Structures are given as C-alpha cells and as structure tokens.
C-alpha cells in the first residue's frame, strides 16, 4: 500500500480539522508568516552615527530589530513591515528609510 503523503497545511481545510475553539497549540507560529513582503521602505543604519542606545530595538512594534555581535542594531527584513518607527525614534539620526526599489 502506498504511503499517504502528508502535507503541512497552512490552515485547516475542513471544519473537522479545526481545533475546538480555533485554539492554536503551536506557540510562536506567527514566525511562519513572513510579513517582510508588506514593506515599501526599509530601515538602513549609519553605524557612524549610532550610539548603541537600543531605542530602535525597544520601539520596533514587530520585534524584528536585533543587536549584532559588535553592539549595533539591524532589522530582520523577513519580518520588518517598513513602518519607520525606528527611524522616527532614532534621535541621533542613524536610521533612514530607503525605498525598497532602490
């Protein structure tokens, strides 16, 4: 008998496949949804101006800004939606928003 091929589904197809109450048991599965494609602009850091205060990290609503090994910051562009809050909050002016097309 041929082995049934199981396919990982993005969402339940039938009502029977839904968990009771539509509960989601896999924690942190929002990471499967790469929201980076939503952005029209991306943040670019000028580390010459960066004072490593981390305010961009704190304010990022997506939680996609991480500290690098040498203490500077960068955004994970798979999830960055290009909102520009980091650039707005960065008072030394180290972050600028660049068009995606550039």
């Amino acid at each position, binding site marked *: 008998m041929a082995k049934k091929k199981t396919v990982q589904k993005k969402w*339940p197809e039938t*009502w029977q496949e*839904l968990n*009771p*109450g*539509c*509960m989601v*048991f896999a*924690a942190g599965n929002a990471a499967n949804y790469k929201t980076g494609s939503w952005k029209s602009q991306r943040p670019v850091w000028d580390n010459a101006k960066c004072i490593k205060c981390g305010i961009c990290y704190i304010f990022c609503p997506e939680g996609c800004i991480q500290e690098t090994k040498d203490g500077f910051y960068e955004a994970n562009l798979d999830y960055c939606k290009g909102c520009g809050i980091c650039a707005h909050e960065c008072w030394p002016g180290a972050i600028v928003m660049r068009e995606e097309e550039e």
Partner: protein
Amino acid sequence: MGKRVGMEVAIAAAEAVALCNIDVAAVYPITPQSHIAEHMADIIHDGRIDAEFITVESEHSAISALAGASAAGARAYTATSSQGLMLMHEILPIVSAMRLPICMANANRAVSGPLNIWNDHTDIMPQRDSGWICLFTENGQEAIDLSIMSFKIAEDPEVMLPCVVNIDGFQLTHMIEPLEFPSQAEVAKFLPPRKPFAQLHPDNPISMGCFAMPDTYTETVKAKEVALQGAKKVVIRVFSEWAKRFGRKYGVVETYRAKDAETLMLTMGSMGETAATAVDEMRKKGKKVGLVKLRLWRPFPVEEFKAAIAGCKTLVVMDRALSTGGAGGPVATDIKSILYGEKKKPRVLNVVAGLGGRDLTVGDFVNMFGLANKKKNEIFEFYGVRE
C-alpha cells in the same frame, strides 16, 4: 436524600452554585437577580467556599473577566438579568466560540424601554443565537438542580460550551418555597473538578480567541453549530444521571397530560405550573387539553419536540417575548420552521403574553386554550392587550 428547607429561590440558586466547587464568580447586581449577587458575595467573603469573587464595574466586565478565568482553567460563574445581559451581549458569542464552559443564571426580566423590572423573556431572546446552551426552569427546585447540572453539561469534553439557566425574575427569584438540597458530598461525586481541554499557562503557551479570514470563518461557524447541536445528547445523559442519583427526572421537552390531548399548549419557564393547573381544571370538564414544556431552548430539541406534539390538532405556543417587526414570538417562529416540511402537522397559534410582569393566572391560561376554537388564524396575537 437532601434536607427539605424553606428558602427564597434566588438565595437557593447561589447556595446551589456554592456546592459546585467554583473557582471564580464575577456577578454585578441587578434587579431581580441582586439576591444571587449579594448572597454569592457573602458565601465567598465568609470563606464558606474557596473561590474568588471579582467585584466588576459592569456586566460586560463580569463576563470578560470570566472569559479570562475560564480560559485559564477555572470553573466560573455569573448571574445577571435584562439590561445586564444586554450589556454582556458582545462577549457572549466570543465565550461560546472559544468553547469556554462558563455557567450563568439569568433572572428573566423585560428589557427597557420603557424601564420595567418585571418578568418576561425579552432579555434572553436577543441572546438566542450566541451559541450558549439555554435552559429554562419552572420552579425553585429546578433552579437548584439545573444550576448544578449546568456545570456538568457545559464542561463535558463533548460540549465545552457556556450554559445559561433561566430563572423567571420575581415569579421565581423572590419566592420563598420548599426546596431540597443535595449534600456537598453527593454533588462532589456527581460533579468532579473541571478538567479543561486546554488552558492558558505560561509554561505551555497556546493561543485562544484567534482570528479567522473569509477562507476559515464559515468552517468555524459549522464547527460551533455541530458542537452546540451535539450538546443535546449530553444534556439528556446528564439529566438521566441526575435522575439516578437524586430521583428527580428532567427532559429536554416535557409533557403534562398530553397523551390524548387535541389541544396542546407550549410554555417555557414558570408559566408551566400555572398552565398545568389550568389543564387540570379543563380536564375536569372533559376538555382534551395538555401541556408541552420546552426546557432546552438551545440547542432546540427538534426530534423530542416533534414526538411530544404528535397527534395533537392544535398547538398554542406561548411566547413571553416578541420578535418586533417579525413573524411573532421567537419560540413560535422556530416551531413553525420546524413543522413546515412535515406532512402531518397541527394548526399553530402563537400567543404573546405576560410581558413586563403582566400576571398570567389560571383563568388566563384557560382563556388562551380557548383561542384554539377561533376560526381565523393570525400569525400571532397579543393576549390581554387593551385596545
């Protein structure tokens, strides 16, 4: 068997819940439910049970707080009435969609306006489609029994849905009458602690109350419908376990002297007893009349209802509410839909009566049975309205 005591029914409803090992109660007082709220607070404050009483600022907050408590695994209870239930309205379908087995008593009262604090069913009817299991009680004993059974029904792994027990305001809540309580040990045996299907806990994070796009929402509605319809067999199972343990029998639809009746009347809640007395009086005069009492309003027990009315010529459906601008009372509207496809069906008369505390005496029920002799059939009629 329990001890027979005299007690006000609202107090008794709170005492019954105190036997149920609840974890959290959030009850905002409102006439005619206030004695439940006050007594529940007393019971918890006095340390008679190990539970948390949350003094919320509104009914919306009460049901919201309980949604959180229930999601965390607690056995949760609230009680309300009329405007309070209307204020809960937004949260009610969320609770059922999240499959949270919260239990609630509703002291049925008319909705404003004009402001009216007296009994009818206009508060629960707008909540009809919210996905809650909906039970009606006829007297104080039933208020005790069903309050206890509601937790067992709601928490059953096949159900996991909230449950509201309707106790007619004043007519029942403010009545001192003889009642029997099961013992704490008997209730503990009948109703073990809640075993939640899933619960919010920091060690095991899950998501509840999620978002569904058009490609999933229809499936969620179907799943909820199947769950609620499936609750009927659990209700029946819990009723039969109750009968075995405590000797009092309940049915999702109950009949009284209905066997050879040509005219049946269908009632819900406290109307049942007065109507039964009217049936007795009319039977003495040789009239072939009987009574059908709908205990389970949601899910609607279609098969049991059809069996109960089989053979009758006329069915008088009593509604203590009106679907304003619609086709009569909500109970009759459902019944007509159910009967539409049947080959053999009785003539259905719909009477809207007893609104806003308008009293219904034995004589009134005799008169309403008399409507069956009328030739012309209105879609519905008001009983006793002054013209």
